[in-house]
């Protein structure tokens, strides 16, 4: 059995972080068969987090944001080729160039793409950009080098906020427009949302919350400004559309798999479900495109856009692809992500949106260094640190053990008893940007999937 699993043909669709780490793990775990990676970008796998940070500051060129290889993977790389479908009966991946790739086991790691500006005509204006790929980041860095009079960032999630931070660090005037009540509020709730709003304003960001951009204005094909829902206008040479991500699942529409806008559903072992909710044993999923159940969050299906999740889930998926049933592992890692913006390091463990209350367990808003702990129905479900990341390990333990919320007082840097307030996580529908963490209900079937707002 094990012998068969380490042989045969494995195809990985998606040649970014999850695809690469899965390929490396397959080889490390003894897969000796034929391995093919398909990626629609022409580049070998590269690292995206620097694209909205160091690259925009000019500290590193977009083309240098490589991913270190852990080991040689001895694979066929089909780069610059888009996969257009899967035939689960003949077990083939269909390619946009007409090719067909037969597989014995398939890993889907197609990730996400930037959500485009909804008005295609306005989106085509020179100066309107999104940031997801190496080319996107290089293009924006070039625009910023040229010294635009004002940059408009639409959407104040993590990506939008990081871009605004880079603009301010370069001394550029920047307006941030967010439909919700504060930046980052969709991911972190009210307490840190209010903190982020003060932070952005203190750094000179022209922050406009509670409004939407109703149209991008142009002249002669060039962006000149934008109009807001309250009727006001601004002038801008560059508009960065940071409305969140779209999961790359359209190509699976006819595959019979449980794929939809929220991702491709899989079980705890990364095996994909069919549209009928039946688990497959030859199609696996990892990374941003996956929706997977997590026991710490009432077995709701999670969709995460986290670097760490892509790595961990890819490793579990790869392990399970070459391991017999009893040796398979569940993907149970506690979600974690980080962001750097406006000189701060923000780090999160758990799922902050899965909460009804929060408390500041360490530090304080005034210091600008703090740990906020999130609880749901009396247990700890997440913690977010601002310039206090080394403490998060403690809270990860509390999350893993479903420790009571609020956590016991007595931290050296928070002597007084904690004050508990509502977490104020808004319904994602009121935000400009899509959530980077989405709780997507319990059911794998795409037509039955329901979005349950946290709380």
């Amino acid at each position, binding site marked *: 059995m094990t012998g068969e699993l380490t042989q045969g043909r494995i195809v990985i669709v998606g040649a970014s972080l999850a695809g690469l780490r899965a390929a490396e793990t397959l080889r490390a775990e003894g897969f000796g068969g034929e391995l093919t990676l398909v990626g629609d970008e022409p580049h070998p796998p590269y690292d995206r987090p620097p694209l909205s940070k160091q690259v925009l500051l000019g500290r590193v060129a977009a083309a240098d944001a490589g991913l270190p290889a852990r080991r040689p993977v001895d694979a066929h790389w089909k780069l610059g080729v888009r996969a257009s479908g899967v035939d689960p009966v003949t077990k083939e991946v269909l390619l946009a160039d007409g090719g067909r790739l037969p597989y014995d086991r398939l890993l889907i790691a197609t990730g996400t793409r930037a959500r485009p500006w909804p008005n295609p005509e306005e989106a085509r204006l020179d100066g309107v950009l999104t940031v997801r790929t190496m080319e996107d980041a290089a293009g924006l860095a070039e625009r910023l080098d040229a010294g635009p009079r004002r940059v408009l960032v639409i959407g104040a999630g993590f990506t939008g906020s990081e871009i605004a931070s880079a603009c301010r660090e370069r001394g550029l005037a920047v307006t941030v427009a967010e439909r919700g009540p504060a930046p980052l509020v969709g991911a972190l709730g009210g307490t840190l949302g209010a903190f982020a709003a003060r932070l952005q304003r203190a750094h000179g960001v022209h922050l406009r919350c509670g409004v939407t951009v109703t149209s991008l204005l142009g002249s002669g094909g060039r962006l000149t400004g934008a109009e807001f829902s309250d009727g006001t206008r601004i002038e801008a040479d560059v508009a960065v559309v940071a409305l969140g991500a779209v999961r790359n699942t359209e190509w699976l529409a006819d595959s019979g798999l449980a794929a939809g806008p929220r991702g491709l559903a899989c079980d705890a072992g990364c095996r994909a479900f069919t549209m009928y909710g039946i688990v497959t044993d030859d199609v696996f999923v990892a990374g941003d495109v996956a929706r997977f159940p997590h026991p710490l969050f009432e077995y709701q299906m999670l969709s995460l856009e986290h670097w760490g999740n892509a790595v961990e889930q890819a490793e579990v998926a790869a392990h399970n692809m070459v391991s017999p049933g009893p040796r398979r592992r569940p993907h149970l890692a506690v979600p974690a992500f980080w962001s750097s913006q406006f000189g701060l390091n923000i780090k999160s463990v758990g799922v902050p949106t899965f909460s009804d209350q929060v408390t500041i*367990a*360490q530090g304080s808003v005034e210091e600008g260094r703090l*740990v906020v702990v999130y609880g749901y129905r009396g247990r700890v479900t997440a913690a977010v640190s601002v310039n206090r990341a080394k*403490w998060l390990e403690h809270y990860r333990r509390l999350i893993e053990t479903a420790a009571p919320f609020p956590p016991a007082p007595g*931290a050296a840097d928070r002597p007084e008893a904690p004050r508990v307030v509502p977490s104020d996580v808004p319904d994602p529908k009121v935000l400009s940007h899509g959530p980077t963490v989405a709780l997507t209900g319990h059911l794998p079937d795409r037509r039955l999937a329901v979005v349950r707002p946290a709380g």
Partner: protein
Amino acid sequence: MSTETLLERINDYAHRADPYPLYAELREHGVARQNDGSFLVGTYHEVAALLHDPRISSDVRHRTDPDEVRARSDGLPPSFIAVDDPEHDRLRRLAMRPFGPPHSPGRIDALHGALVGIAGELIDGFRGRDRIDLVDDFAYPLPVTVICRLLGVPREDMPALRAWTDTVIASLDRSPGEETWERQQAGTAARTEMAEYLGELADRRRADPADDMISALVHDAGPEGPLARWELMTTLTLLMIAGHETTVNLITNGMLTLLRQPDALERLRREPELMPSAVEELLRYEPPVQMLPQRTPLTDIEVGGVTVPRGAPLYLMLASANRDPLRFEDPDRFDPARRDNEHFGFGSGVHSCFGAPLARLEAQVALAALLRRLEGPRLVADPPPYRHSPILRGPRHLLIDCTTKDDGAPGES
């Protein structure tokens, strides 16, 4: 049957060469209350939890025993290793500015060439001899030279610094004895003298800056402003002592371990690229800091089914946790290629070793140079004589019989 407590036996010099059976006993006991009211924790997961718990203080002034509080209240205030957040965080951050990322990301890497040079010169000094004392001839002068160069301490002042350091280290030893009080008084005095010396050196660099860390500390303060003069004094004293003391033991323990394990030694000669992982294994297997004796709960804390009361002395036994079979496979085996090696050789959590990147580089360069150039190295005495401290544990001397090769290009066989 012994009537001594485990802590007394661990402190007993008779067990210095091999405390590991005592640690195994400790792990069997779980969280172990001692007769003096202190608590020992030696299992990996419990040590990990306590290292990351914000309710555990590093400041002994939180102990309930008034004698302890008084003993530590003399002389200078504590340095950042012995205070809690947010004070610890602020002091450590300011000290990090000229030392590491994000403000000085290249400082340690830039030392690589100098380190190779210093190690090479020290080994050149072995030529013509068939016996060396690895401690006095190599493992001590190497990190001292490096930390003096890094901070900007003149070479001629090194003997005075050595004397002060030895006295301070002796005073950390809490094992009972008639001279405990005298040791502590002498330690306080030595620390104060050293701090005054370093404060004056910093004053000179303020007037006349050089390319060193002290100059950077006084001149490039950053938005939060500079360290106050007394903070600078305690911080520099800490960096000076911690910046070399433990590395001596890391290098010496490293060579001792490799001489006891000829297979591992030969493998590292054949595969020098394994050295970084071998140094990590060393930090697990023979950590220079065996325990953290200064922790105190700020509130009653439950760990391993035992309640440790507020204010009780809490000993985190890092060397024991590093050998916990519940965490490490075959923990008593030295495996230079070990993976999944999240050891506590540098502690963990907010107080994790400030100088770890420097210590790693020093040990890697030092051991690589020794393996490349010493021919037929053989231990003269096993076990070697140990230094007194059960906390900062390592040989006082390590005599090795060997001949010394001229240095070829690294990697030459």
